């Protein structure tokens, strides 16, 4: 199993996730340049990560242009064949734009970019990236985005909740899910979701920014540890 990190020209969290996977988690990690197709030896055992950043500048709408990039044609096929794809921040936006995940990420309620530590909890512990996280654990993981307010129509939201596709919700320090603890105005405080076949994941918080003791926070590593335990089973 290896990880492929897609690099768009405006990706800027690519080096961070590569560092964490290679040097903290000791995983084989390769770079996938946006102009190239997926390499031949990339199999369904491997994982693709779409990192944070501003893919093609994102002047229009975050991820709106990235969905048309050459690599994304392959990523969509890979996911439709059951391959695992995980989008973080801009990656999540791109997955919604490409139709691999439902709903949309629109401008934060306060109309500002927000970068700070937030608290969130696991809503569904039956996926590979959440299964290993201790029950009722409140995770501190930073966000950094201008367009992170998750919205979808009522039918879709009901479906997401019924299918247990909501992975993470913003909560306060005590775990309560309320408007005060909602940094960007997302519906139902949604911070991350998966598709109905549970092989495509998207989240706005940045686990790679909370993966090392040297930075004083390793809550984000729990997701990666969970992924590795479950993927290798």
């Amino acid at each position: 199993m290896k990880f492929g990190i897609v690099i768009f020209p405006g990706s800027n969290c690519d080096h961070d996730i590569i560092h964490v996977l290679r040097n903290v988690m000791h995983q084989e990690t390769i770079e996938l340049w946006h102009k190239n197709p997926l390499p031949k030896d990339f199999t369904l055992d491997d994982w693709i990560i779409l990192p944070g950043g501003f893919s093609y500048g994102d002047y229009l709408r975050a991820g709106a242009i990235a969905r048309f990039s050459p690599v994304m044609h392959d990523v969509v096929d890979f996911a439709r064949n059951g391959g695992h794809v995980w989008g973080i921040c801009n990656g999540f936006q791109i997955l919604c734009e490409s139709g691999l995940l439902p709903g949309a990420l629109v401008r934060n309620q306060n109309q500002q970019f927000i970068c700070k530590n937030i608290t969130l909890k696991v809503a569904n512990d039956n996926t590979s990236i959440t299964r290993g996280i201790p029950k009722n654990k409140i995770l501190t993981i930073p966000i950094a985005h201008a367009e992170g307010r998750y919205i979808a129509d009522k039918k879709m939201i009901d479906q997401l909740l019924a299918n247990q596709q909501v992975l993470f919700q913003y909560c306060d320090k005590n775990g309560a899910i309320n408007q005060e603890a909602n940094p960007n105005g997302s519906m139902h405080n949604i911070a991350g979701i998966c598709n109905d076949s549970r092989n495509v994941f998207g989240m706005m918080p940045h686990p790679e920014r909370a993966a090392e003791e040297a930075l004083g926070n390793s809550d984000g590593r729990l997701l990666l540890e969970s992924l590795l335990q479950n993927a290798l089973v």
Partner: protein
Amino acid sequence: MISTDTEPKVNIEIAGKLGLSADEFERIKEILGRVPNYTELSIFSVMWSEHCSYKNSIAWLKKLPRKGHHLLAEAGEENAGLVDIGDGLACAFKIESHNHPSAIEPYQGAATGVGGIHRDIFTMGARPIAALNSLRFGNIRSARTRHLMKGIVKGIGDYGNCLGIPTVAGETYFEDCYEVNPLVNAMSVGIVDKDKVISAISKGQGNPVFIVGSATGKDGIHGATFASEDISDESGEKLPSVQVGDPFQEKLLLEASLEVIDTNALVGMQDMGAAGITCSSSEMSEKGHCGMRIDLDKVPMRQADMKPFEILLSESQERMLVVVEKGKEASVKAVFDKWDLNCTQIGEVTEGNMLQYFMHGELVAEVPADVLVLGGGAPVYHREYIKPSWYAKNKQFSIDSIAEPENLIEVARHLATHPNIASKHWIYYQYDSMVGIKNTLTNHAADAAVVRIPETDKGLVVTVDCNGRYVQASPEYGAMIAVAEAARNIVCSGGKPLAITNCLNFGNPYDPEVYWHFVKTIQGMSRACLKFNTPVTGGNVSFYNQSADGGAVYASPVIGMLGIMSNPEKHLGMAFNQANDLIYLLGSSRNDIASSQYLDSWHQRRDCPAPYFDLDEEFAVQEALTILNEKGLIRSAHDVSDGGLFISLLESAIQGNCGFNIQLDEAIRPDAFLFGESQSRIIVSVDSQMKKLFEQTLKECNIKWSMIGTTGAKLLKIGDQNFGTVSEWAELYNHAIEQAMEE
């Protein structure tokens, strides 16, 4: 040479309109041995503008200490200072102003300021890993201030966030004197392998010259000239002088510029900031003692029918001039192709020292490179300076003329919610402070930002500091304090100061009182930099920060200091993190409230000098702290600065969510003890079991100190008074600016 019909005829009036004096016009004619055409005159006007030539400051700047064994480039030699940080690495860092553009068009003005300073760093081959900024606004209650602040903060955020360089630290002040003319100073810090540094040089006759990055448009023409005059009602008409930023292009340029170094095909590279092609081609040629021929019509352009002088002076952003070894063009072009950037040959290096600019084969301007640039033929002026009449009188200020406040809690609340002191998170939450996963400040509040150096366990320690009120009151001492505070912040975070970059923001240099502030600032800064062994590696001077009716801004010499933390275990934070620790004050309390925020905004008094400061005492206190930290005897450290002792204690309490109980000092007035800003003081918390060893060590340090109380509970207790809970004070402190912005 014939000037084209469409160009204005050159005479002394036209020269004046371009900001050149009659003397300067005469000198140009002497140098060329003829009357320049309009294109040539435009070239001189930008290159000899204050902004590019430093003509009114360079004589004094040369008196600053600029040498140190750890410096790899002397001030002015490269685009930014270069400091040896060990492990084969160097740190390139610099601060620069973008005040005037931000006053007219806050969003683009601030954004392009950020873009420009990062380009200065990566043009040297260094990857920027941290950004800082220093902002000055008018009263937060004014609609203009809030408008500027929203635009400037968003501009800085949008540019830096897209580029993926974290903003790790900064400072913001609100004073009436900045109402019309805000200050926007941006700093970039980068890392480069010592043997991969790229120089801004052109040499080797026949080597091709490329322009890379964005196409050239009509934006920013005469921007450098605009930055060299006072802000007035007509300044709005200078809007075309403001450039427009494209952070995505800059991100491509950043990655491509760093990648192209590995081709080993570069002779030199220089970013295009002020005065665009003119400045980069002349500075690179002068440095390499050669000439250059440029075909202006080959420059990729955004619009048709650009005139030669417009192409030469355009300050379109996200561009570089690159000189390549002849024969290696293909490998360079391949890198820029990969990143979908223009890379077009526009000329070549020539023999001699002449810059020749052609348009469709016709020579349109011909000027020797060396006469244009700083250190070459650019003018150098010695300006008159006069000590202001109020200075002597203000020194007579006595605390006895100020009534003691009846209610200390009210004063404390006023200070904790004053926008100069309250939490600035309304600002910095809009900046990506964490991208790059090197900034430790997120989970470890400290006086300076500690940024991990890749592939080592060391950290760069960086801060920007300047209290303009102090400098305005007593420039020599105020400047020393700015350097001392920066060093103190670095030491309080576990670092060792190495070097500084400065951004000297002043009013009109032709005003002798403004110039006196400038001269005294240089003298004070020199003394402090020598004491701390932190040479000046470069920076920027911004004059003409004043308005027609408001006068000059406070003298604001912003210090950006670089330090290093060699051992991550010595990383210090400011939070009170344990109950029942002992709280010590290193340094002495004084009956001094001069120039404090308390005196300024509570008593509305400004007729006073800077707070008490003694350079030797300051140095000794910092040395003592370093020794205590080396021995592992302290749990937290936080310096006493704006708002005095109370605010420092409050900040440590809020960060650790832990209260304190301290005693007043009977020899000192309670208001001076709590809110005075006399310098050279640091609060530390100490494990009570370490008391004996701590005090023993301190006694050997030859400084004044006292134990003032203990940490614990969730209350703030001072003397016999209960000031309230940590959480209610945190609420006030954290939300004051947010509330003011919503008004």
